[in-house]
């Protein structure tokens, strides 16, 4: 869960949230509008991870096609050899860029594969949270429309 929203909830519902606050490490990825309805990727990251400063790293391995076969179903995978706590995928040109956040507990491989929608040609960014810092890899995915198949 994102720490900021935990703080907000903690402020609003003081006593009950104390237990939640006491064990933030146990928290799981959880949906929140503050992350997934954000129009800007940086704000989404801020709300998800309490920080939006990122460092590009070749240790973050992002796999996505150069040209999407179909914008409705684009396979994307993120993997890293770093010790990761969380992985996120941002699709810059989508109405709200944050597509997925995934928590990686100890013992789970720092990897996630899924299929995403992309409305148009866009930058796709994989974010890995490791040692409290955010590392990224990005690439452009071209989305074409039209022809016989699409």
């Amino acid at each position, binding site marked *: 869960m994102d720490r900021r929203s935990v703080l907000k909830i903690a402020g609003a519902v003081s006593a009950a949230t104390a237990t939640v606050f006491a064990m933030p490490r146990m928290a*799981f*990825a959880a*949906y929140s509008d503050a992350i997934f309805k954000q129009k800007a990727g940086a704000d989404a990251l801020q709300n998800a991870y309490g920080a939006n400063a990122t460092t590009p790293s070749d240790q973050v391995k992002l796999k996505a096609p150069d040209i999407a076969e179909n914008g409705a179903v684009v396979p994307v995978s993120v993997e890293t050899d770093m010790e990761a706590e969380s992985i996120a995928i941002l699709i810059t040109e989508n*109405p*709200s860029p944050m*597509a997925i956040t995934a928590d990686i*507990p100890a013992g*789970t491989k720092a990897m*996630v594969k899924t299929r995403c929608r992309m409305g148009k040609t866009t930058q796709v960014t994989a974010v890995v949270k490791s040692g409290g810092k955010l590392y990224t890899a990005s690439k452009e995915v071209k989305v074409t429309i039209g022809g016989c198949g699409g």
Partner: protein
Amino acid sequence: MSSIRIKAKDRKGLVDVKCLMKHNMETGLRKDKSGKKIPEHWIQDVSAESNGKTVFSAAFNTSISKDPYLSFAFAGKKGDSLKISWKDNTGATDSAETVIK
């Protein structure tokens, strides 16, 4: 029948999980034939438990494709249980359980 299909295989101590969840994942941007917007309806939270311990969890936006696909891997072994559940924005939930092969 559950909306979730799971394939979980032990590959030298690392369990390779692939799962497909049947769900329309409506973005709220699509219109029906009469031109009315189809309300958004999507899976927000997914979690996976093996032998009672959470091994993976994720939150989705509407930008995850229809019938979401998720693949991950965790330390485990053949014969362990694996339960995957989701919850969507209407509060609906579903889960499926399998034994790791």
